[in-house]
């Protein structure tokens, strides 16, 4: 059943368009930087800084930093929001449910395929950035400047050999996928609530906006660590590139994302198992 759903989604133009954008943006970014300012330092996250033309491995960092604010959550929201609402919009949801399988199983399959596509979007973006970066700047060791520990007397620089840089990049990708989990689950919940995919996508992006806005309100600092999408949380993946590796923020962030994801997924399941399917 997963293979049926996967085939259906893969043959759709909107999925291809989304993945194509994910692949094109890093390539375009590489071209722009490569032409205009290859030797300048680029800020990555809150504390990191890399010089673009020093290594091909800088491009995935720059691309992730730029896309994590908006484009990656958008891609994830699109895949999750389409899962159920698209069938409802096409009017094919009730025919789908006539098949002799439980609603829970259908939702699980839809969610699994949407999750796989979301992982695919993150992977596409970073692989495209890596390929473009290696092509433009070569397979060289990656040097990262740690601005938090740099003072006038001490330059905190870490250099990773290419193999280690690739490993760290993999670690960072795991962070990034965890960070968009709550957006994914919320979009899936909205997808079961509305018959319009656009509303579900807009709502899921709204979760990030409201959360970020609340995070930036002075006086609500105490709320910060408990919000699903925050500026500090978005930059967390960069700690994979510092020496020594600072993993202290990871358990809290992973737990928080797991909690939000579980709540939204449960709500989606409760809603979908009980909803009157009219379209």
């Amino acid at each position, binding site marked *: 059943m997963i293979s049926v759903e996967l085939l259906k989604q893969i043959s759709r133009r909107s999925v291809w368009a989304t993945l194509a954008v994910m692949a094109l943006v890093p390539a375009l970014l590489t071209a722009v930087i490569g032409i205009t300012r290859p030797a*300048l330092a680029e800020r990555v996250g809150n504390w990191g800084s890399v010089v673009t033309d020093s290594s091909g491995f800088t491009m995935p960092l720059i691309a992730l930093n730029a896309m994590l*604010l908006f484009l990656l959550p958008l891609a994830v929201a699109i895949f999750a929001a389409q899962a159920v609402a698209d069938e409802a919009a096409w009017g094919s949801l009730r025919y789908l449910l006539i098949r002799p399988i439980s609603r829970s199983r259908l939702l699980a399959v839809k969610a699994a395929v949407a999750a796989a596509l979301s992982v695919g979007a993150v992977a596409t973006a970073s692989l495209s950035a890596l390929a473009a970066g290696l092509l433009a700047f070569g397979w060289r060791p990656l040097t990262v400047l740690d601005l938090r520990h740099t003072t006038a007397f001490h330059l905190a620089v870490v250099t990773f050999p290419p193999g280690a840089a690739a490993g760290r990049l993999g670690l960072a990708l795991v962070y990034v996928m965890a960070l968009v989990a709550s957006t994914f689950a919320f979009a899936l919940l909205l997808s079961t609530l509305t018959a319009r995919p656009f*509303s579900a996508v807009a709502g899921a992006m709204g979760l990030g906006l409201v959360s970020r806005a609340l995070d930036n309100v002075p006086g*609500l600092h105490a709320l910060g660590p408990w919000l699903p999408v925050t500026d500090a949380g978005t930059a967390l993946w960069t700690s994979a590139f510092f020496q020594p590796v600072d993993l202290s923020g990871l358990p809290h962030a992973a737990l928080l994302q797991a909690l939000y994801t579980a709540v939204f997924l449960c709500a989606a399941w409760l809603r979908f198992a009980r909803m009157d399917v009219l379209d």
Partner: protein
Amino acid sequence: MIRVELAKQLTRPRTYLTFLALTAFALALTVALSATGPGRVERVGDIPLLLVPRTSMFTLPLVALSSTMKFFLPLAVSVFAGEALAGEAAWGSLRYALARGASRSRFLGSKAAVAALFSIAAVVLVPVTAAAAGLVAYGWHPLPVADGSASTPLRLALVTFDQGQALGRLGLATAYVAAGMSSIFAFALFLSAVSSRPLVAVAGGVGLTILSRVLNVDYLPGVAVLNGYMPNNDVDLWQHLFQQPVQSAGMLHFLVLQAVYSAAFLALAWWWFLRKDVLE
């Protein structure tokens, strides 16, 4: 005709809910600041301005304006502008509204005027509520502001504004933020003329602020050229009004930019609405 439209919008729960939410936000901010330590220094904006909430009632409107101008105010403005025409279309009442003997231009004009009035009211409501809450909580005192960019560990660049001055600058700041919302307003109104679904228009208006924030050199290298021409990037420049001397460079540029964007989107909305086939 404006009066009819005003009466119609005033009776809608959506209008009240939006105003209520903004008021509640300003009040919640006061409570939160009082609860978490009103004696602590708060950093406002990118400069940053350093404020101690307890010192004066005027700290609260500053904090409230700077924490709503990037998302909550654009959202409120988009709701008012986005609902104007698309709301009627969604209800299916647009063609009956147009069957009255008024020209489409006049209809659009009165819709836009009422939506603009509500949008301005929303922007004004936030600092006014915050100032009222601040008056109760911290009293009518002069406003001390430290300029975080000019301060060094050895010297604090502290300016104190007396009440009249603080009020005047706050008024200017509010007017600047209200003017800064006009491009979003005009864009949401244009989408409202194009689409028959209010949500699309509202999301589009908010989307314009996101686009403006994403195409920012902090996140995306190589777009520095665009920086001065984004519709919503420089809405925070009012914070420079509270530095001494006032650094108003860039504010005039931003206001002209807003006028250009607004004129373009309003003209587009008008052009589209005059020619639209109204099927709903």
